[in-house]
């Protein structure tokens, strides 16, 4: 991974997919000492874990039992405490209209299955860099984050 581990901003990546083979593949792909990886096997479990871990990045399947990925994405977007959380949709829904819906819902990236693990790794690094760049003000002073937001 690009930047050295920083204990205060130790990243967490959540993999949410109901297919165990997919979780295994994604986990094997992004395994790293730079961040911890956690897994959820359906939409409800995913949302519970997101609230608990406040992950830096969620790799989110769309078609899952309980709550689908788009619903989870909306919950993330409507929760101010998850402002920095990046979301990559990783899904078998590959129609242009599906991609449009996913991007409109606020995903950082839309990847379709099958995907290249090496490409996914690059995308995960990029997403985590974006997350880190958003961490800077938070770490210094939460109050200043609010004022920066007002200026922006």
């Amino acid at each position, binding site marked *: 991974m690009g930047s050295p581990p920083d204990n205060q901003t130790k990243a967490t990546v959540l993999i949410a997919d109901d297919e165990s*083979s*997919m979780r*295994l593949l994604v986990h*094997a792909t992004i395994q790293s000492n730079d961040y911890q990886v956690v897994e959820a096997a359906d939409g409800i479990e995913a949302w519970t874990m997101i609230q608990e871990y406040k992950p830096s990045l969620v790799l989110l399947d769309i078609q899952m039992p309980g709550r689908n990925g788009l619903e989870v994405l909306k919950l993330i977007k409507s929760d101010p405490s998850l402002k920095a959380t990046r979301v990559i949709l990783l899904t078998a829904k590959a129609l242009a209209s599906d991609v449009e819906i996913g991007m409109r819902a606020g995903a950082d990236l839309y990847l379709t299955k*099958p995907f290249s693990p090496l490409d996914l790794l690059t995308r995960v690094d990029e997403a985590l860099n974006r997350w880190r760049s958003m961490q800077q003000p938070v770490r210094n002073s939460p109050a200043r984050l609010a004022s920066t937001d007002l200026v922006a």
Partner: protein
Amino acid sequence: MTGGVVQIAPTFDEVEPTGVPERRSTDQRQLLLAAMLVASSDDAIIGEDPQSVITTWNPAAQRLYGYSAEEVVGRNIAFLLPPDRINELDAVVGRVAKGAGAQHYETKRVHKDGHLIEVGMTVSPIRDQSGAIVGTSTIQRDITQRKQTDAVIVEMAAIVDSSNDAIIGKTLEGVITTWNRGAENIYGYTADEMIGKSISLIVPPDRPGEVAEIIAGMMVADARTKNFETQRVCKDGRIIDVSLTVSPIRDSDGMIVGASSVARDVTEHNAMAAALKASELRSLLAVSRAKDEMVSLVSHELRTPLASLLGFTELLYSRDFSEEQRRQYLEVMLREGRRLTDLINDVLHIQRLEAGHQNLDLAPADLNALIRRAVTSAGEDIQRPIEVELPETLPLVMVDTDAVLQVLGNFMSNARKYSPDGGAILVTSQVVGDMVEIRVQDHGLGVPLAELPKLFATFYRVDSGDRRVIKGTGLGLSINRRIVEAHGGQVAAYSEGPGHGSRFQFTLPTVRIGPEEADVLIVEDDTGFARLLQEQFVARGMTTVRTADAETAERLLREGMKPRAVVADLVLPGVQGEEFVTRLGVDGAAVPVLVLTVKNLAPAEISALEKAGVTAVLPKEAGASQAAVSLITEALVPKAKSI
């Protein structure tokens, strides 16, 4: 005019050449002029004396009747009258004689060549200078054509009046001149209300220039008749769709003086056509939507296992993993590859079933034997044993045994799959009317009530937490439904709800095979080879019944079937061919029994079979079917036997 014979033509001829009128007296001149008038008249002028003898016959009379003056002058006029009008003469002449004055009437006369002509005539008395009637003059005109025209006009008027279509005549200014009953019915206005009014009364306000446009279009040199659809407004305000034909009305000089329109109310027709089109479109859209859904579902279902295969391949190719990880990934790849294969097979199977390409090889079958075989195929599972409760006798069913085994296998493996905590699975069968019903009951997860109706839909999978670990393509029940329905049966699912297990059941049609129905009983599980045999026997005029297992064959024989020959395979599902033919021999069936097998039999085995009553053992190889059919034919025909 004076009485007596007036010889017009000679007088005229006499006068003309001399040509000195001034020397004639005024009376003479008058007389001459009158004679010239008669001679040159277009109307036939005939003079008669009081006894109706013809005295005068002008050239027009000759043209009218075909007789010359020489032929008729001096004859009684009666020969011109049709026999049924012979009294007419006396009546008319009588009236004239009584001083009734000129008589006008229309009647019929006979032409020289015999045909009847319609004539209009004026009969006037001829008086001498004292005023006494000395004869009659008749002026006659051929009105045959006018009569015919009149008849046509009357008929046309009747047609126009009785037409269901609105037929309307109007001037070039759009003033209505004719309004038939059809127009009254369609538009609601009476002729009295409309004649003299403007046609614009029935033109909807949103089409103000239409009438002027139609008339202008009609005036264009070669425009004759215009056909188009438009709308009109009725007296009650309804807007109706009309199919309109507009034609010019010409006067006798060919000038366009108006327009006639024929309108048909097509509102209902249009509404029906629109409804039909909409429903056709809807069903087309439904088919295309179903196809789109299928494609989208399949592509989605393919993407996930493909992602595993490609993803792990790329990882293993580009990185080093521990032996344990490598093994784990390869296992996943193998599993996902198999899942992909299953999926493709299932989709192809469904596609074949849907397109009706799946030919069911129907044969009578003992369903209980099929169920026992399916249970054996399902294998052992101590946590989820499959128990059967079957009645001793079940009518035979007419099925494709492979397809029914697949249905049974799918239901049983589902029952096990959705019983993660174990529990027995019970399979039962029973007769319901002219069908047999098979039930597969489990004690597993059960199905929420709302999900039951969707279970048999393609790719449908119940979406709940306790099921997400259970793998499936979502196609098994859909395939089962299609196979059962192709047999004429029905599938159903029941559940008391989650946690209460579920019951899947299906029906199959029963069949009754009479004892007389087969010359040859074929026991062969290879459908392709069985069909080959059947075709050849049929070509030789023999009937066949095929069963795919020995159990069904034994049932048929028990139930009284008396085949004249038996052809049996040795490798069969369930009871083996050796056992079957041995039992046949024990039962003393005095018919030729032929064994066809792929087995490489030792001489001792062959002799054992022959001892058991087998007529011949043939290896199943190219040409085996012909050899078998020839052998059987020889055995069955006494003459051939003696050779």
